[in-house]
């Protein structure tokens, strides 16, 4: 590992952590907004029909 890289880590770490946290936030928000796929609705309908 390059010395420059290692000594640079403390400076880069906060931004890296921020990116990680906001990536998690964005992913969760996107998943919450996504509608339930029609295939899933159809599966549920078929499950009900069988029950």
């Amino acid at each position, binding site marked *: 590992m390059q010395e420059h890289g290692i000594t640079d*880590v*403390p400076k880069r*770490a906060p931004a*890296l952590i921020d990116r*990680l946290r906001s990536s*998690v936030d964005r992913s969760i928000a996107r998943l*919450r907004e996504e509608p339930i796929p029609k295939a899933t609705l159809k599966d549920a309908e078929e499950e009900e029909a069988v029950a």
Partner: protein
Amino acid sequence: MKMPMPFRRDTAAEIKRTTGQVSQVAAKLTALQEKRAEFITDAAEIATLSSIGDEVASTERLISTLQERLVVLDGRRKEEREASLEERKAATLGELERRLRSEADAAVAVVDAFVAAANAYGRYKEIRSRPRPWSDLLTTPMACQLVSTI
């Protein structure tokens, strides 16, 4: 003098005629009774048909009402199904979020450890770059050799 007997003949003829009339009337009555019986049967059939017609109409109305009810229930079932799926989605996403944040925390802990290691390495480099005091020379291989010789 013997009295003529027109009456007897007339009476007999009348009886005969009347008997014939009675027979005719009786036949007519029988025919009328049969006809009436037919009418009664027809009327009963008509009443039965009318009753069946009413029942058919009533059943059709019931079917129509039930079909409307079915449409409403189908819509409600669809809404309930979607709501149930939304609940399941929310629960799954909640669990996913919990795990993702936990993984992120673990990753942050790794980064923190790496930062600590990098800081320690920087400190080490800084100390190494300082001019060595004489005491440090005692730990050098040459000093060790000297000490063992003495």
